[in-house]
């Protein structure tokens, strides 16, 4: 059982009704869940892992609510928590290699890709993102998907803006090469987007 979010881009807002600060914090967190899931999917790849990541981030955020500074961007703060947990997990479980290997296998054969249906092509693009190194993947998700500015992404990643620029450029070039190599992927993705 689940809920359908129709306006995932809506910025989190405090609840209109009276409530404690804790309740407002939770409400903002709930409102941000669709974007957190999307960001986590970009990092972790698999849906179940991504949701585990989001759940862990929610629990950590609630435990550290007092550290959030009013007036700063809540989404950036949460992205940073997700990213930190994910990096910890990468180090602990070495899932990066597994994910890359799996994605490589999925992208390795041209014939199935050319027959792929439009919707699956979007999954292929996500698989191509999985092939990127973690720092490039994070930057791509923050800027290209989540729409953060370079400065905001730099704050989340804890690196200079110049590093964001170079990571982003490398990520997009690599991605374009993957898509070009995939042949039908780009075409099918266009169809999927048009649906």
């Amino acid at each position, binding site marked *: *059982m*689940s*809920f*359908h*979010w*129709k*306006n*995932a*881009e*809506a910025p*989190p*807002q405090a*609840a*209109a*009704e*009276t409530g404690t600060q804790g*309740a407002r914090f*939770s*409400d903002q*967190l*709930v*409102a*941000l*869940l*669709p*974007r957190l*899931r*999307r960001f986590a*999917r970009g990092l972790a790849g698999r849906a179940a892992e991504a949701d585990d990541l*989001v*759940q862990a981030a*929610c*629990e950590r955020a*609630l435990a550290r609510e007092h550290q959030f500074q009013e007036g700063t961007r809540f989404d950036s703060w949460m992205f940073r928590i997700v990213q930190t947990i994910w990096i910890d997990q990468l180090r602990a479980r070495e899932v990066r290699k597994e994910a890359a290997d799996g994605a490589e296998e999925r992208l390795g054969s041209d014939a199935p890709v050319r027959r792929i249906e439009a919707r699956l092509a*979007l*999954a292929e*693009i*996500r698989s191509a*993102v999985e092939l990127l190194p973690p720092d490039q993947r994070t930057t*791509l*998700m923050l*800027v*290209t*998907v989540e729409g953060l*500015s*370079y400065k905001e992404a730099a704050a989340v990643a804890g690196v200079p803006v110049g590093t964001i*620029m*170079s990571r*982003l*450029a*490398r990520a*997009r070039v690599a991605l*374009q090469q993957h*898509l*070009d190599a995939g042949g039908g992927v*780009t075409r099918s*993705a*266009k169809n*999927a*987007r048009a649906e």
Partner: protein
Amino acid sequence: MHVQSDEALVAYLDGELDDPERRDVEASLDADPALRERLAGLAQSSELVRAAFAEIAEEPVPERLIAAAGGGKGQGAAEPHQAEIVMLKRPARGAGAPPRRNPLGFAAAAGLFGLMLGTGGTLIGLTAWHMGQPTDRQIAAAAVTDAWLDNAAGYYKLTVKSGDNMLIDVPASNDSDQALQKISQNLPQQMRLPNLKPWGLTFKGARLLVVQGRPAAELVYITDNKAIGPLGLVIGATTEPDVAPTIEQRQGVNLLYWRHHGHAYALVGASNIGWLWGIANDIAWQLDAI
């Protein structure tokens, strides 16, 4: 003009260059068709990435994450819900008479149900029904409605959280019938709109929902009186047998839920359950749903 780096092209696409840098890139693009092609490729890949991840944000959010974000321990550790059944009463009024509005009566109801609300969201009632043991049928009905109520509460919270936008699919217009017509087109039954203006509640619009795989509608009412609204009235089709109005508290909001002749109703809000009781009574009367 000089050779443009990938960093510059990507930053140009992202609108991150200052004016002199942007003009420099544009001068290069004007002079170099290959560079334009490269830029188009980068732009396309960015667009595809956005498209590839856009659908994820539209996916249903697993309930365990809602619970985690709300400070719960996840679905598996959810507190058991205990329901309280109340009786809605058809208001005694003549044809054409205004709906029953008895502030004293509602205040009394509010006080009564205020006492019935225990800590931790558990309802503690002292009615005759509750003093006896629930029947198997009541237990089964509670299990069936469990998910439905969670959905109704979740949708309500999402609607409220969206603020002024309210995530309305069919906004209220001067012609309420037109709004209802639109929402009804997507539902298995014709909707009717309860008039809650005497309660100070204004119809804001309707949302189309999918509750347990079946289409449903949430009629959204707003008011300046935060003690009452906003309120959501979720109406869906059901094959379950009729059930008497039942008070629940889910995810920090109150619900008054009942089923009648193939329709499931839930009045959802953060207001005192006494207000919900009174308003639900009015709704049930107007919709002939009790």
